[in-house]
């Protein structure tokens, strides 16, 4: 209805790593977009390391968390890695509430994720 672009996903290729720079809130309106981007990189391109830079994601809902879990499972299926960077308080809270924080590789900075 509003038709605005509330989420932006920019992609950077750094050798065998792909970084998704996500800006905006992830909710029911756009989590399918996040899911599609992540699964395309993991299942189709089989990129060894995918970094989800969430520094500019202020909010993520349960549908966004579901997309991350699905992407993590896909990355494990193909033997690759999905890393999360820069979780906001709200994003960290929902992963803690769902007891999922411990299953993800989470880093404070992109440098730390790339060096891991």
């Amino acid at each position, binding site marked *: 209805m509003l038709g605005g672009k*509330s989420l932006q996903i920019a992609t950077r290729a750094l050798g065998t790593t792909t970084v998704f720079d996500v800006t905006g*809130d992830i909710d029911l*309106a756009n989590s399918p977009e996040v899911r599609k981007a992540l699964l395309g990189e993991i299942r189709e391109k089989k990129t060894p390391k995918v970094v989800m830079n969430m520094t500019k994601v202020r909010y993520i809902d349960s549908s966004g968390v579901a997309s991350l879990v699905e992407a993590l499972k896909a990355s494990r299926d193909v033997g690759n890695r999905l890393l999360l960077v820069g979780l906001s*308080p709200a994003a960290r809270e929902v992963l803690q509430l*769902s*007891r999922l924080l411990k299953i993800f590789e989470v880093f404070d900075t992109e440098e730390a994720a790339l060096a891991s």
Partner: protein
Amino acid sequence: MTQGQLLRVELPSDPSMLCVVRAAMERLTEALGFTESEVRSVTRAVDEALTNIMRHSYGGALNRRIELSCLRIHRKRAKSEEGFEIRLVDYGPKIDPAKLRGRKLDEIKPGGLGLHFIRQSMDIVEFRRARGANVLRLVKYLAQEGRDRN
């Protein structure tokens, strides 16, 4: 206007409205004196409840009616204890109460987390069917610190 009423709106069951409601919930709860963490809790609960209505009650239809009202309330027998109540009304089919329990968290799988987030974020979560509508009542009480700020 109902006593204590702060906001009453009708919105379509369109996910693009979620960010609008989140912004309103954040401003209202901040103004009432909730902490940053509590503001996030209430905002998350309302967002997840609306998401459930859009996905499950209305099956993804974009133009069905949702009523949202927010009230300032006092806990019964404790007039000094203030709270924030949100009522969400939709006109979808009757919901099976068994489906309102949410799934267990011991399995790592996508989906089924919305109800869990709502229950963990609010002090009261009540659902009832009334006059052909599903009515969800959510309440968050204000801690002493927030009452003093007000």
